């Protein structure tokens, strides 16, 4: 069950990162982040903050639009999965080395 203490009102997040509230809604539209609605107020889980921060950097610093960020997220997930697989395979290969 989600702890409500882990939820931060989106207005606070926007003030903290100095971004418009509409930006957060757009992120939700693109399914880049998840928002929680409680009594008609929108909240963001603290676990999502790192993701928001990264998106803010990509969008504002590098002028990457939401479609691009979505594509980057997918590719980074693939890269991470492949890196993990390489580590696993490398460790397994060590079994057969020096025989």
């Amino acid at each position, binding site marked *: 069950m989600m702890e409500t203490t882990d939820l931060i009102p989106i207005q606070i997040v926007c003030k903290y*990162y100095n971004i418009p509230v509409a930006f957060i809604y757009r992120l939700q539209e693109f399914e880049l982040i998840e928002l929680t609605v409680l009594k008609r107020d929108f909240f963001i889980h603290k676990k999502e903050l*790192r993701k928001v921060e990264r998106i803010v*950097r*990509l969008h*504002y*610093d590098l002028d990457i639009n939401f479609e691009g960020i979505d594509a*980057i997220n997918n590719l980074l997930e693939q890269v991470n999965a492949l890196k993990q697989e390489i580590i696993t395979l490398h*460790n397994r290969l*060590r*079994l057969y080395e020096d025989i």
Partner: protein
Amino acid sequence: MSFIDYYKVLGLSKSASENDIKKAYRKLARKYHPDLNPNDTLAEKKFKEINEAHEVLSNPENRKKYDQYGEHWRHAEEIEKEQQRSHYQKRYQGEDRSYTETDFSDFFEHMFGGRATGGRGRQVKYRGQDFNAKLQLNLKDVYTTHKRTLTVNNKNIRITIPAGVENGQIIKIKGHGGQGINGGPNGDLYIEFSIINNTKFKRDKDNLYVTVDLDLYLALLGGSLMVDTFSGKVKLNIKPETQNGAKVKLSGKGFPKYKKEGHYGDLIITYQIKLPTNLSSREKDLIKELQTLRS
């Protein structure tokens, strides 16, 4: 302190326009941005250079100063005098990227006494930069949970290394990365383990593998044998007529399972039968006799 040619960093000539600088920065930043190159220290270093070059060249006053004194950077006194008169001394404001002032080169610090203003002029709180470190350990070290003191950026950090960590595994130490910007939280420290195996055991996750030499007669007739495991010796019963390459599994004698205290993988032993050499004539005769019996 080495001279950094910011124009070269951005692949520009001195006559580059503000728009050229912006375009070059955007292009290179997209290539080397740490968010797009996670755990890539080379890309991170390159990005810092690009960012620093952009900070200086995108600000007309900083650029003018750089153009004027850049080639004479070794004359520190003159630069410092200039620095004292400069409006830029120790100005830290309006920065919106998550890189601390320590990410800037000595050259930058000497020239401008800190980070320049720029970007969108927003006072944004950002997490500090994440740090990456590699820790080399022996396989024996990670057989037990233990504490270790690391020095990262001149700070000592005492961490607990859980038994069973794997080669290439990365753990996160929260809050031990770079300092946050404008009051933002600190970044995290990511430690990658590099495990050196200098034992006779091979490891696959939490299972261990070892090959044990078996005397021919012990293999034929059976008996008992003392065998090394990772945690000490055990006595094994060898079945009569054990074949070469036969395997036995010792449950719970493998490597500790990561973050599962008291749980261990298995030790898989492969028997390798050693044939006797330098046979005496008596031995040869007896073996021939055996051969006759079997045929």
